[in-house]
């Protein structure tokens, strides 16, 4: 009241009030809109470069679509039918699943063992952990070139060592299973250390009183590993297996580089003995045929296979883990 009498006019009194109102309104917009603004770069870029292409693969796959001449007429499921009738597609699928199995199963087992060893109270802990991770920074292309030479049919180191112990040289590039083994070795080389650290982290998160209880129950080291450690790290194992399914079934770099004879193509060996689905996809779209429609059909089929194998893995891993250890004991008590 006193202040108003001292101030000459009303507008001067109103102005600051209005300014605060403006600022408040701006502030409210700031609070309301900013969260959306902050997440929008991710969602926009992801929609354009990730989600849309994946969905649009379905559209391309039901058209005749050439790399050079572009979109052709709608052909329905013809591309799928054509692809499924190619023996080469089935060869690629067989190889992919075989390489995937040879690289995932030994890798998880090896990683489990190394993680269990690393889980001890080591001196120079960080040194050993970094040591297992070295291969991770080597590009798959480089890994493949190195191992391609180590597994070389004629002048390779592995065959030379085998010769020393009196074993005939193995056709690492020409034989189907041997080439799958060699390629799986490359994958295992690069990823085992990474997987080991993931599993190690899960092992360290197990509360130690569980082990104390197992010791009181008279469980041996091995029994502790199978009855406490494995069931406790089950979510991590599922995570590891699912991610290696997604990555492993799309394998491209290693088998492509492994082909020393046809180094400019993605033929996967003279007889396609180690061609993979992604190599076939590349071949169809950007190789000799320029057939993006069929290429997209292969991508979509591979997507379905990844989904299927992921689900099977999930179901399988859950069964394994719940069969041994805690749950079985619980079931026994109940019955």
């Amino acid at each position: 009241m006193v202040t108003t009498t001292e101030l000459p006019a009303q507008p001067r009194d109103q102005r600051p009030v209005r300014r605060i109102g403006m600022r408040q309104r701006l502030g409210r917009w700031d609070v309301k809109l900013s969260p959306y603004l902050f997440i929008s770069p991710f969602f926009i870029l992801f929609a354009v470069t990730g989600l849309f292409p994946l969905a649009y693969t379905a559209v391309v796959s039901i058209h005749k679509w050439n790399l050079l001449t572009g979109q052709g007429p709608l052909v329905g499921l013809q591309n799928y039918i054509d692809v499924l009738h190619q023996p080469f597609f089935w060869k690629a699928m067989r190889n992919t699943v075989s390489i995937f199995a040879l690289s995932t199963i030994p890798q998880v087992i090896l990683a489990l063992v190394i993680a269990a060893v690393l889980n001890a109270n080591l001196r120079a802990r960080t040194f050993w952990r970094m040591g297992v991770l070295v291969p991770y920074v080597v590009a798959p292309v480089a890994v493949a070139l190195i191992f391609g030479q180590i597994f070389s049919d004629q002048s390779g180191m592995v065959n030379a060592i085998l010769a020393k112990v009196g074993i005939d040289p193995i056709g690492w590039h020409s034989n189907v299973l041997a080439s799958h083994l060699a390629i799986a070795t490359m994958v295992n080389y690069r990823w085992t250390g990474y997987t080991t650290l993931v599993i190690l982290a899960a092992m360290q998160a197990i509360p130690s009183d569980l082990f104390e209880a197992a010791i009181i129950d008279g469980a041996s080291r091995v029994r502790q590993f199978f009855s406490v450690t494995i069931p406790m790290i089950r979510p991590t194992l599922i995570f590891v297996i699912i991610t290696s399914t997604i990555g492993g079934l799309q394998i491209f770099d290693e088998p492509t580089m492994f082909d020393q004879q046809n180094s400019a193509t993605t033929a996967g060996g003279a007889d396609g003995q180690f061609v993979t689905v992604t190599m076939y996809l590349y071949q169809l779209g950007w190789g000799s045929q320029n057939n993006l429609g069929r290429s997209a059909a292969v991508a979509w089929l591979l997507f379905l296979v990844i989904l299927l194998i992921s689900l099977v893995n999930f179901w399988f891993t859950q069964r394994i883990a719940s069969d041994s250890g805690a749950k079985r004991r619980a079931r026994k008590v109940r019955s």
Partner: protein
Amino acid sequence: MSAPSIPVIAQSAGKGAARAAARQRGHHGSGADRRPGWVTYAVLTVVLLIAVYPLYYAFLIASSTKEDVARHPIPSLVPGSHLIDNMISVVTSDIGFWSALLNSVIVSSVTAVSVVMFSTLAGFSFAKLRFRGRGPLLVFVIATTAIPTQLGVVPLFLVMKQLHLIGKLPAVIIPALVTAFGVFWMTQYLEGALPYELIEAARVDGANMFRTFWSIALPAARPAATMLGLFAFVANWTNYFWPLVVLGAVPGKTTLPVALKMLQAHYYADYSQVMAGVFVSVLPLLILFFVAGRQLVSGIMQGAVKG
């Protein structure tokens, strides 16, 4: 079978017995703290040798001549004297080594910075701000980390063709600017690392939302951001498939992994040259590993616990 650990004794036979047992064993900690024997170190040494030998093998081959390689399939452990010669002939060959190196540096750096920025921005929003649709959107992000988006390669190629980017670096960079994993990772980290009080204090001081992000959230996110940046850098440095599709095996216009492939085609039978190329291409990341390997290790282990 190993003897029961100290806490077990403490629980079953009493504290006094535990103390006696600990004294007898000459340790002060519990069983888990016991130092492992030499067998453990022997096993780990073997693992370490297996991890390092292939790289050393590449170095050995790279330092010898074509004839040496043919004569000795099992290289001697002492390197030869031709490393520099072979490296020089690789970097001066017509695969365009220097531009490939430069392209790889550009692609990996730009994408690493961008992934960190956009992921932290979105992570801050998801972790600390309230807005309609937050829950479902976050679930969407997490779900997409498990979708193999690389399979959208055909339409993505068509998009890049529409934008006239085929053969140009932005075609490699743009799809790698954001990752769903990065957003998820930063959300997880900021949830625990950034107290609401700090944000409120900044707001009270009159900072707008972006200012709050820039001077409060970004500094708080630094440890996780460093790791995320490293992973993005490594992933893009080692990427081969997509650069091959959009850039092609064109000397001077592609990235290092694709150039390596050209090297293999080029020096078809001369493995000492090929391995020299491999060695040169691996070197930058090995140096990075010596500097920041510790962060990579803890990044993987933290991600594993949370993911």
